[in-house]
């Protein structure tokens, strides 16, 4: 049986764990609501841009903003968006395993966003071309370095985590070109004709279309990063909730053990007193 002082000390550490998990849980839920508000506030802006892009597209094929020039590498680019640090549950591992199951270094190059994913890819003895830190802030995310890499490749597939609900997150992949073409086509169907033949374009319709292709790539990549961040916060929230529940159970168990031990000690003392009294014999 444990000593009372040991149980008290364990109870104190359990209270610290409870406090910490509460704080992490609160932080994760705060970040989730911040990102959701931010996505909502930017929705109108991006919708308007999609509408313009859908109607300005000069070619039905998406060219990654390269225009007529050829890509530098005749390979596909895989981008994996993962968390920067730990505390994000097992979702990164699932994402990396899924991506590596179709990865062939002779056909694809790999770029990792987030330290956690880079670590897991290294542990799997797979080499990656570039590593970018997951942006710390949730707004004004600069995806230009990523876009510049994307432009060098024949095509790009992005693997990322997606937020479904607070308790459910999933992993997803999109082919960047298809995602942008599909989004553009769906906007074309849903809106009235905005841009007619009498428009003046400066410097030219091709330059505007090419610039917008870059913009759409930035928007799509930013959205995948934000979606990943949401999923990571939700996954962290879930992990902290589980840890908190476990700590609560353990804390209750320690409380019971403390009472049992205290009662046992009291019983032992009573027994000793009774034994002592019986050995001393009757009082005359």
């Amino acid at each position: 049986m444990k000593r009372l002082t040991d149980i008290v000390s364990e109870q104190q550490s359990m209270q610290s764990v409870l406090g910490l998990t509460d704080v992490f849980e609160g932080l994760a839920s705060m970040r989730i609501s911040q990102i959701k508000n931010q996505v909502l506030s930017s929705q109108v802006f991006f919708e308007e841009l999609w509408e313009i892009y859908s109607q300005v597209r000069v070619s039905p094929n998406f060219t990654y903003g390269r225009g007529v020039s050829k890509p530098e590498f005749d390979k596909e680019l895989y981008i994996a968006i993962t968390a920067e640090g730990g505390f994000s549950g097992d979702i990164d591992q699932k994402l990396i395993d899924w991506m590596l199951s179709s990865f062939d270094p002779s056909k694809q190059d790999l770029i990792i966003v987030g330290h956690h994913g880079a670590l897991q890819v290294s542990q799997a003895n797979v080499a990656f071309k570039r590593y970018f830190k997951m942006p710390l802030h949730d707004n004004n995310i600069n995806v230009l370095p990523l876009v510049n890499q994307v432009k060098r490749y024949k095509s790009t597939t992005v693997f990322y985590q997606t937020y479904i609900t607070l308790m459910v997150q999933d992993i997803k992949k999109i082919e960047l070109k298809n995602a942008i073409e599909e989004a553009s086509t769906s906007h074309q169907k849903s809106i009235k004709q905005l841009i007619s033949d009498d428009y003046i374009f400066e410097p030219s319709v091709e330059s505007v279309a090419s610039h917008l292709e870059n913009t759409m790539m930035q928007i799509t990549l930013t959205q995948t990063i934000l979606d990943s961040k949401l999923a990571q916060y939700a996954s962290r929230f879930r992990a902290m909730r589980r840890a908190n529940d476990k700590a609560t159970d353990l804390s209750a168990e320690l409380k019971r053990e403390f009472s049992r031990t205290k009662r046992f000690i009291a019983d032992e003392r009573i027994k000793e007193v009774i034994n002592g009294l019986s050995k001393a014999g009757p009082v005359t």
Partner: protein
Amino acid sequence: MFDRDEDKKRILKVKVASPYVVYYDEPALSISGVNKTGPFDILPGHHNFITLLEPCELVIRTRVDEQKIRINGGLMHVRADSAAVFLDV
């Protein structure tokens, strides 16, 4: 001086925004910026127009004052007496 109806016709709806911040969303008399060709002004009744903006100072003139917004570039869409400027794109 214009009469009231004529006055209304002379108004341009101007919106200058980045994904997360709206810098200006009010009626104005004109908006000026710089594109590859050089400085230009947009007045009510301007032809439908889409242009890539160079880093410059956007100048929005209203009845009471003049507002200046320094930008790093962007896209301007002018249509039916309204000018939308998309920044950080």
